[in-house]
C-alpha cells in the first residue's frame, strides 16, 4: 500500500484527491522504496510515452520554489548550496513577486505566464460572490487559462508536480501527468515538510523522469509565518533555511550523479518574501467599514496577510461612491500603506479581487474580520514589502549562461514563457504576460 495523505473528511483538496483515486479516475504509482506515492490520470503516462517524442527530449526543466524566501537570505551564509547554484548560472537580482504577493496567485502566474486578470486567481483567499463567503482559491477550476504544464503535456512531454501545500495541490489538480500525493501533512500548516517533499522530488525524477517538474518547498515560508522572533533574530526561520538548503544541494547532487545535469535547467525562485509584525501592529478594517453609514453591512473583506481585498456587496449604483469611501477609511487607518482601486491597470487583478486592494506598511499585518483571532501569526506577506524574491537559473544545459547576472526585471510570471521557450513549446494565442528569461 502506498501512503496517502491523511486528510479529514470533507471537501478539502486532499480529500478530493483521495476520492479521485478511490473512484479509479487516478492511478496510484508506487515510486521508490520509501512509500512515496504519485498518482496519474488513468492512462496518462502511457499516453505521454506513446505520443510522438518531441525533439530534444533529453531536456529537463526543474522549477524549485523556495516558498517565502527573501533574496538576501541567499547571502546570509546559511544557504551555501543555493548560493552556489545562483553563482554558477544566471541570476536576476531585480526579481519580484506580483500582486497580490501570496502563494497561490504567484504559483499560478509561474505556470500560466499570465497575470490574475486572465488566470482568475488574484489571491490566496477571495470573497466568492456566488457563495457569499470567503474561501481559499484551491480548486483546480479556479485557474481559467492554460498552463505550461498542459502545453507540454499536449506535446508529449511528461510533467510532474511535487507541491507541499494542500492548496497548491488543489489548485493545480491533475494537470500534470504525475502528481505527488503529499504525505505526511502537518495539520495546522497544511503542508508537507521539505524533507518529505524533496524525497518525493528525488523519487519522481528517478522513477518517472518528467521533462518538467514543479516543486514547492514550504518550510521556509511556514517557519517564517510562525517565527515569533521574526522581527529580531528569526531563529526558526534560519533553521529552516539551513535545512532546505541542504535538500536543494541533495537534489543538485542527484542531477549531477545521474548525468541529468548537462541536459537540465534548474529554476529557483520564491513566490513572495516575508515580513514580520509585532502583536500591536495589526490592522482590522471590518469594524471601520461596518461603522460607516454608507458601507455598514455591505463590505466583505478577504484578508491575505499583508493585503486586504474589499468587496462592495451593496447596490451596483452605489459602487463608485462606496469605493471612494472604502479607500478614505482605509487610508486613514494607521499601518495602511496604500489602497488602490482593484481596477487600477497596474494591478491586473481581475474582478475576483473585489473593489479595493489595501496594502499594509512593512512591519504590519491585517486581521479581518476579527482583529484578534483571524491572523495571530507574526510572519506575513501580500504587501509590497514582500515583493522582492530570489530568482536564478542553474543547470548544465548549454542555454544556461555561466556565472552571469542580468539587471532585467524578472518576475514570477516569467517562468512559463521561459519553460515554453526552453522546450520550444510555442506561445498562447493571446501571448504571455511574462518574458522568457533564457
Amino acid at each position, binding site marked *: 500500500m502506498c501512503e496517502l495523505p491523511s486528510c479529514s473528511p470533507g471537501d478539502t483538496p486532499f480529500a478530493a484527491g483521495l476520492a479521485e483515486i478511490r473512484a479509479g479516475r487516478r492511478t496510484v504509482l508506487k515510486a521508490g522504496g520509501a512509500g512515496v506515492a504519485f498518482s496519474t490520470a488513468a492512462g496518462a503516462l502511457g499516453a505521454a510515452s506513446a505520443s510522438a517524442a518531441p525533439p530534444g527530449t533529453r531536456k529537463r526543466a526543474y522549477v524549485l520554489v523556495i516558498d517565502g524566501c527573501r533574496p*538576501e537570505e541567499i547571502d546570509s551564509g546559511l544557504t551555501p548550496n543555493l548560493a552556489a547554484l545562483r553563482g554558477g548560472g544566471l541570476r536576476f537580482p*531585480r526579481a519580484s513577486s506580483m500582486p497580490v504577493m501570496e502563494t497561490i496567485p504567484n504559483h499560478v502566474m509561474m505556470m500560466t505566464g499570465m497575470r490574475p486578470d486572465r488566470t482568475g486567481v488574484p489571491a490566496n483567499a477571495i470573497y466568492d460572490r456566488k457563495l457569499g463567503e470567503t474561501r481559499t482559491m484551491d480548486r483546480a477550476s479556479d485557474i481559467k487559462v492554460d498552463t505550461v504544464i498542459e502545453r507540454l503535456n499536449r506535446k508529449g512531454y511528461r510533467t510532474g508536480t511535487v507541491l507541499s501545500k494542500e492548496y497548491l495541490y488543489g489548485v493545480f489538480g491533475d494537470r500534470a501527468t504525475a502528481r505527488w500525493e503529499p504525505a505526511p501533512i502537518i495539520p495546522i500548516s497544511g503542508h508537507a515538510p521539505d524533507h518529505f517533499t524533496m524525497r518525493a522530488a528525488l523519487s519522481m525524477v528517478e522513477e518517472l523522469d518528467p521533462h518538467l517538474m514543479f516543486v514547492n518547498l514550504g518550510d521556509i515560508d511556514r517557519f517564517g509565518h510562525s517565527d515569533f522572533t521574526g522581527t529580531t533574530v528569526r531563529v526558526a526561520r534560519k533553521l529552516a533555511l539551513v535545512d532546505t538548503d541542504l535538500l536543494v544541494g541533495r537534489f543538485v547532487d542527484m542531477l549531477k550523479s545521474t548525468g541529468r545535469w548537462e541536459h537540465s535547467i534548474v529554476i529557483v525562485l520564491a513566490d513572495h518574501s516575508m515580513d514580520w509584525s509585532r502583536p500591536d501592529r495589526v490592522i482590522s478594517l471590518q469594524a471601520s467599514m461596518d461603522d460607516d453609514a454608507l458601507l455598514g453591512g455591505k463590505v466583505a473583506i478577504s484578508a491575505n496577510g499583508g493585503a486586504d481585498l474589499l468587496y462592495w456587496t451593496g447596490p451596483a449604483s452605489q459602487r463608485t461612491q462606496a469605493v471612494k469611501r472604502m479607500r478614505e477609511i482605509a487610508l486613514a487607518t494607521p499601518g495602511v500603506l496604500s489602497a488602490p482601486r482593484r481596477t487600477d491597470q497596474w494591478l491586473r487583478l481581475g474582478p475576483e479581487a473585489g473593489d479595493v486592494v489595501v496594502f499594509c506598511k512593512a512591519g504590519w499585518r491585517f486581521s479581518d474580520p476579527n482583529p484578534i483571532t483571524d491572523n495571530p501569526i507574526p510572519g506575513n506577506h501580500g*504587501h509590497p514589502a514582500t515583493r522582492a524574491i530570489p530568482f536564478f537559473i542553474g543547470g548544465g544545459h548549454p542555454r544556461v549562461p555561466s556565472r552571469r547576472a542580468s539587471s532585467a526585471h524578472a518576475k514570477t510570471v516569467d517562468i512559463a514563457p521561459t519553460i515554453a521557450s526552453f522546450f520550444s513549446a510555442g506561445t498562447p494565442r493571446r501571448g504571455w504576460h511574462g518574458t522568457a528569461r533564457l
Partner: protein
Amino acid sequence: MSTLRSPLRRRTVLAGGTAAGAGAAALVASSSAGASSAAAGTRYFKHGVASGDPEPNRVVIWTRVTPTEASTPGSGKGPKVQVAWEVAKDRDFRSVVRRGTFATSASRDHTVKLDVGGLKPATWYFYRFRFRGSVSRTGRMRTAPAARSTPGHLRFGVVSCANLQAGWFTAYRGLAKRDDLHAVLHLGDYLYEYGPGQYGYGSDNVDIRKHEPRHEMVSLADYRQRHAQYKRDADLQDLHAKYAWIITWDDHEVTNDQWKAGAENHTPGTGPGGEGGYAARRARAHRAYDEWMPVRMDATAALGDGSRLYRRLGFGQLAEISMLDLRTYRDQQVKTAAPTPVPALESEVNDPDRSILGRRQMRWLKESLSRKSPQWKIIGNPVMIAPVTFAAVPQELLAPINDVTGLLPDDGLPYNVDQWDGYTDDRREVLAHIRDHQIKDALFVTGDIHSGWACELPYDIGADPVVGDSAGVEFVCSSVTSNNLKDITGTPSRTTSVLVEQVILANNQHIKYLNFDDHGFSVLDITAKRAQMDWFIIGDRADRRTTVRHTASFATRTGTGKVTRVEWPVGQAVR
C-alpha cells in the same frame, strides 16, 4: 558643508604625504594635458569645453567664447556672436553627425550651452567649437545606454569639494588620466565663495592659489568670475574634456551652509557688511551656475527657465542616477551653539515639519526609489544620510572633528545638523519608503564631508547590531582639496585621525570604512552583481605634481544592503 575657518595651528611638515613609494598600487598623475591639446583655441576658448547630463540620445555640451579682449567673464562687455559647434563619431571629425551654430552674448557671459540630440545610445562622441577660424580643444563624451538595454557595467569617477585656494586639483588629473570611465559624478562644492585668506590650505588658511575676484563672491559678476577662474584650471579642463559630468550643487556654489531662505555665510541687508537679500544673491549664483555648468536645470539647457537641479538620468536597466538638491528647499539648520540644551536640540532635529528635501522633492525621490526600470537606484546625495552616533570622543578632538565634519557639537552630541542627521524625519520617511516597498539596491553616493566613508543604512540604528537589516548603502568620497581632519589638527597623517576613526567605527557598527585624512577621488563601478567604490588618495595638495594611489575599496553585493571590503580596485587605474 560647514567650513568653520579654524584658528588652529598649522602643522609644520606637509611635504611627502602618503603618496610616494606606495608599491605596486602607486599611481602617478602627471600634469600633461588630457583628451586633447589644451593649447587649441586658447585665443577664444580660454575656459575649455565640457559636456554633461548624458542621456541615450542627447548630451549637453558647453564652452565659453571670449570674442574680444574686453569680454572678460563678468564684464558684461562684448558683442553678440555666433559660435559653431559640431559633434562627430571620430576624434578627427571625419564623421560629423550633428552641427550648428549658437548665438551668445554678454547677457549670458558669452557662454555656449546646448542640448545636442539625435545621438545613438552607449556611443562615444567627440565635440568642438569654432569661432573666427579658431577651433576649441576637442571634448569627448559618451551617451547613456538605451533605456531597455542591460549594460554589463557602468563606471563613474566620483568627486566633491574642490577648493581652489586649498591646493591643486590632482584628483581631477587622476581621473582624467583614466580611460575606463563612462562619466564623472560631482556631488557638490564645485567652487567656493570665499575671498583670499578666508578658507585655504590647513588651519592657517594659506592660499595655495588665490581666488578671483579677491573677495567673497556676492554679485553676479563675482560668481561669473569665480566660475571662470575654476574653468581655467588645467586639470579641471582636462577632466571636463574627457568625460561628461553629472553634477549637483551643495552649499558653496552659493555660500556656506545655505538653506532655503538664508545661509551661515550671508549677511542680509544693506548696512555695513550687508550682502543684500539672500534670495537675490542665490538667484545670481544660480544664474551663473546655469551659464557656466554643463547641466540641465528644469530639464533644459536653456537659461532662465528655472533652477530645479534635482533630476534623473537613466543608464539602461542597470542603474538610474537621481541627483538631489539638498540646499534650495531645506529648512534652516538647527542651532547648535551652546547653551542649547540637549533635549531641545534632539526634538528639533526630529521635527517632522522640518525638511532637507522639501515636500515636492521628497515625492520625487520616493518615485525614483520605486521606479521599476533600474536595478541600482543611485542617489547623488550632497550630504551624508547614514546616521552617525557617538559615545565618547576625546574632548580635545571635538573642535577639529567639527571643523571638518560638523559631526560633533561641543557637548559631544551625535548630530551634524547640516546633513540628514539634522533632518531625521526626512531620513525616516525615505528609509520607511524603502522598507515598505522592499526596494533593493538603493545606493547613496555622497560628498560634502571631506572624508571617505562606506556605510550601511540601518532602519533602526538601535536594533542594528542584533537585526542588521539595511535599507541600502552609502559611499562617501573624500574632498578634492578641501580641508580634512589632519589638515585642521596639524598632525601627521594616520595619527590623531586613527583614534577618532576607531571611536566612530566602534560606536557605529553600520559604518565599515572611514578615512579622515586624505584627499582624492573615487571610482564607482556598477554591475548587476555588485557596486564597488574605490578610494584613491593624493599626496600633498600644495604640490602640483603630487602622486595618486589606491587606498581602499568596498563593495555591496546586490540585494544585500551590506558593505564588504574588497582587495583591489576595478580596472586598470591611473598610469
